[in-house]
């Protein structure tokens, strides 16, 4: 198609838009996962108040959904290949690249469940909300798989490679850090006993620590 090599027709534009919004969506979802992990460990972003972490986590997740919607709509509108709109949420409904798009649908389904349960959180049981929210640990990898699969030819070099590897490394590292921190958490029943021993121990050392408060620091009541 020599005449289209340098031209940008509407189909190509939609296709590029779909890829671009997909990339942005993946980046946003990566950021949302990282922020979510920070919320559970009460991490702070430098220069920002504490409520910013959870606020950004929530707002960015909504923006991410918007970008996913754009990503889906542009892909459906692109006439070069036929992808029915239902394929966005029904896995394997697309005859074109049904596996890879199916992965995207799975990820989107889970994401929608998380967003909806979070918006309705006040009316749901804590256990239900938490169970659905934990599915984020499934949704992100599935989205990542969808992202590396949809253009396998371009995958192994350039910025797409960096993107895929970079996001994966960052998420794996963050989850690993969070699990390690949780493993250091003391179970509730032992927390009190350990705190008492620690406080008694610090008390015994107070003569050596004159001037400093031997009883600083706080115990967290997180159940996770």
């Amino acid at each position, binding site marked *: 198609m020599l005449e289209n090599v340098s031209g940008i027709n509407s189909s190509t534009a939609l296709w590029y838009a779909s890829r671009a919004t997909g990339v942005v969506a993946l980046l946003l979802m990566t950021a949302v996962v990282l922020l979510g992990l920070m919320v559970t460990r009460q991490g702070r972003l430098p220069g920002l108040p504490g409520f910013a972490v959870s606020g950004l986590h929530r707002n960015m997740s909504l923006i991410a959904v918007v970008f996913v919607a754009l990503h889906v709509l542009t892909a459906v509108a692109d006439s070069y290949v036929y992808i029915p709109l239902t394929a966005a949420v029904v896995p394997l409904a697309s005859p074109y690249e049904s596996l890879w798009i199916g992965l995207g649908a799975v990820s989107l389904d889970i994401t929608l469940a998380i967003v909806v349960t979070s918006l309705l959180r006040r009316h749901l049981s*804590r256990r239900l909300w938490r169970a659905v929210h934990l599915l984020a640990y499934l949704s992100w990898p599935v989205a990542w798989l969808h992202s590396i699969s949809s253009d396998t030819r371009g995958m192994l070099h350039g910025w797409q490679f960096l993107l895929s590897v970079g996001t994966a490394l960052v998420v794996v590292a963050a989850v690993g850090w969070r699990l390690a921190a949780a493993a250091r958490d003391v179970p509730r029943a032992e927390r009190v006993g350990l705190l008492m021993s620690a406080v008694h121990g610090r008390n015994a050392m107070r003569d050596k620590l004159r001037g400093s408060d031997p009883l600083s620091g706080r115990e967290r009541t997180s159940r996770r």
Partner: protein
Amino acid sequence: MTERLLVNPIECEGHGACAELLPELITLDEWGYPIVDGRPIPPALDRDARAAVSACPTLALRLTRVSLSRSLPPQSRRHGRPCGSLGRRAYGARHPALPKGQASQGG
């Protein structure tokens, strides 16, 4: 309808978002846990109070209705219904609130 703030001390993990958004009514103790002023919320702070409730990562902070016929002491653990919850229960309002059971023997 006047409301007051109530924190569920078990769900609260001391994130501190509430105190940042509503310092007039919520301060943090030396361990980062909220000390909540339980008096009815002045109308000027209503928006901030709702922001604080919605910002809590564990939904430990909630708004409950104050019955105007009885003023409740701060941080009282008397009955309160979170606004907007589904499944309304028939609370016998004509019966005065009961105290929480004692730590040792209750009843």
